[in-house]
């Protein structure tokens, strides 16, 4: 389209190359951090550039110049650029935090040499899933980030991490198999896995088959995103990992599932056949999740349950299937990535100072570490949705969209959302009171707070505040993103300018490949 499309593959390529370099430097623990920090900073810059550029229209790269329906294409539109920017900012903060933690804990320095490459591969997988314009490439992106997350969640191989990790790994692999089955059936039904071409072909196939494909894809993504009946794995596995790992998982991995849901629901299956079911699931996710959080004593598990619960808000926005609903859902994803990650980072610091994550054991931290008290308080209020913070703006947008829909079900969801918000406030206030105000049981072991860890955590809390102050422009941006999602044509036209094939140079081969493809599709269409 224009000169800028060379930026599109960078968020995938830079971390992958850097991962290789970091792995090669495994004997040089001083060089590794430089490599990974440089790589993630470059990714952040590239994502910011994309965020600005794609506001004028999606950028498409046909990888290896293979024209789109046959070759793989990477597409950056407003939704993916926004997700990329938020996620690269979050990964950079988490990396800096973990560097400071590694410097401070000499005894944990052993697995650090594998930490950097894995973390970079995780970033590459997340970026690949966000940028991919091809169903199978999304699967590959998922697998890249899953493989990296397996290594990170079992880092060090202690008994507890292996125990928690085995559940995580098995559930993740099961959802991958479901996703693969869904892709196979999509290919059998339509003869393509390219998202833009699927958007053209799916309306032509049998409605029953289409519904089956939709259910299968949603099922696979719902496991990733931890939507209620499929969420039990999350609070069990996340809390045992090291604090920065939990933080980045909580921020990003479930949101990749949510992103995939938004993409498929808007582009491939418009019309909202399953919206009522999704609404009920959203309600169940919100309420069951937050009740779990209220019952928890361990603060990491408490936060994992609020994570599950707030996924319900995003599903609510998706299920509304209106411009307003998607706008609010996208804004909420951006808000939730930053605030949930920030909370987990702060809890990592609380664990360092208080020596425990159990709320019955913690106490008196307000005097020992007033900075933490402020950071946790701001992030917690943000998550609960206290005005004027960004959580309030996101929830307000969702509730408004729900009221605008004006069906009994959407009103039920609105009430459920408010109740969940109040219960979140209750759970987090209780946690704050216990950790910071109740008299301490024993003398805390360490009051040393490394600045390198507080800094990134504070930066993320700050990003949450920026989302509040930049709420107007950001909300307008997500509104434009949602509008393009509803229209669908900008995406399809960008990938397949003439409605049949992309802009790659492989004219001869692609033409022939295309004939076979069309024959295949014609047999079913």
């Amino acid at each position, binding site marked *: 389209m224009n000169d800028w499309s060379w930026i599109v593959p960078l968020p995938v390529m830079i971390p992958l190359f850097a991962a290789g370099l970091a792995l090669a430097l495994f004997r040089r623990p001083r060089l590794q951090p430089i490599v990974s920090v440089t790589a993630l900073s470059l990714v952040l810059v590239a994502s910011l550039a994309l965020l600005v550029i794609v506001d004028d229209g999606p950028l498409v790269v046909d990888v290896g110049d293979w024209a789109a329906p*046959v070759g793989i294409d990477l597409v950056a539109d407003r939704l993916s650029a926004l997700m990329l920017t938020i996620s690269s900012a979050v990964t950079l903060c988490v990396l800096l935090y973990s560097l400071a933690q590694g410097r401070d804990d000499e005894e944990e320095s052993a697995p650090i040499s594998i930490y950097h490459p894995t973390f970079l591969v995780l970033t590459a997988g997340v970026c690949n899933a966000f940028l991919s314009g091809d169903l*199978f490439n999304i*699967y*590959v992106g998922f*697998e890249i980030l*899953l*493989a990296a997350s*397996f*290594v990170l969640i*079992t880092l060090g*191989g*202690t*008994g*507890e991490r*292996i*125990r928690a*990790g*085995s*559940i995580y*790994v*098995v559930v993740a*692999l*099961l959802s*991958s*198999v479901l996703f*693969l*089955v869904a*892709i*196979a*059936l999509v*290919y*059998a039904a339509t003869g393509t*896995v390219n998202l833009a071409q699927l958007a053209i072909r799916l309306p032509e196939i049998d409605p029953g088959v289409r519904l089956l494909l939709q259910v299968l894809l949603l099922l696979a993504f719902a496991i990733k995103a931890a939507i209620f009946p499929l969420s*039990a794995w999350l609070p*069990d596995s996340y809390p045992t990992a090291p604090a920065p790992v939990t933080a980045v998982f909580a921020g990003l991995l479930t949101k990749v599932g949510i992103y995939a849901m938004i993409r498929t629901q808007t582009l491939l299956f418009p019309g909202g056949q399953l919206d009522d079911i999704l609404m009920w699931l959203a309600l169940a996710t919100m309420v069951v999740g937050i009740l779990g959080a209220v*019952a*928890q*004593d*361990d603060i990491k*598990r408490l936060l994992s349950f609020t994570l599950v619960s707030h996924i319900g808000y995003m599903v609510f926005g998706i299920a509304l299937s209106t411009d307003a609903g998607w706008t609010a859902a996208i804004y909420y994803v951006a808000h939730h990535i930053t605030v949930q990650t920030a909370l987990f980072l702060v809890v990592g610091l609380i664990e360092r100072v208080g020596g425990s994550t*159990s*709320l*019955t*054991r913690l106490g008196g931290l307000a005097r020992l570490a007033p900075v933490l008290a402020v950071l946790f308080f701001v992030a917690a209020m943000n998550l609960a949705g206290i005005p004027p913070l960004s959580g309030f703006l996101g929830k307000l947008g969702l509730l408004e969209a729900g009221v605008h829909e004006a069906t009994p079900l959407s009103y039920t969801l609105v009430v459920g959302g408010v109740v969940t918000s109040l219960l979140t406030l209750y759970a987090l206030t209780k946690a704050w009171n216990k950790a910071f105000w109740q008299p301490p*049981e024993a003398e805390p072991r360490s009051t040393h707070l490394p600045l390198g860890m507080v800094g990134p955590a504070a930066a993320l809390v700050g990003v949450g505040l920026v989302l509040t102050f930049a709420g107007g422009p950001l909300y307008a941006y997500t509104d434009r993103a949602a509008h393009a999602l509803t229209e669908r044509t900008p995406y399809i036209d960008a990938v397949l300018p003439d409605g049949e094939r992309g802009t790659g140079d492989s004219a001869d*081969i692609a033409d*022939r490949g295309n*004939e*076979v493809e069309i*024959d*295949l599709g014609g*047999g*079913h269409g």
Partner: protein
Amino acid sequence: MIDMTPNLVLVITIGVLFTAGVYLLLERSLSRVLIGIILLGNGANLLFLVAGGAAGRPPIVGLEPEGQMADPLPQAMVLTAIVITLGMTAFLLAMAYRSWQLHRHDEVQDDVEDRRIARRAARDEPTVLGDDSESAETLDEAAAAARDETDHGAPAPERGR
């Protein structure tokens, strides 16, 4: 034009692979779960192959008449999926072995914290008490001590200590 009628033998094979895979996935031991995952993965790969239509001539432009070529795209994707399955299998094997190293078994355990909360609920106590009645035992210790029921017999004898 590729013949899209699915091959019955392959379809039955896929069904058998999925059935056995799901059964094994529900087992306690991680090694059996691993075999279940492998079977499921192979079933899915085979399904993908069937989704690409019947086998045809090699898809090389210029050597073969175009109407009789096999569709190369699903084969390329299945190849990718097979490699991914291989990597994941290796990781699961390592995890099962590590679990056996640590605990002399490779059970996938129930959630220990959930069990603790359920125990308190059964006694009709508040989940969070003011005092530390149970927190003397950390989750890790509780998990190491806990054995969920396997299909038969006593737990493996302790040895090598």
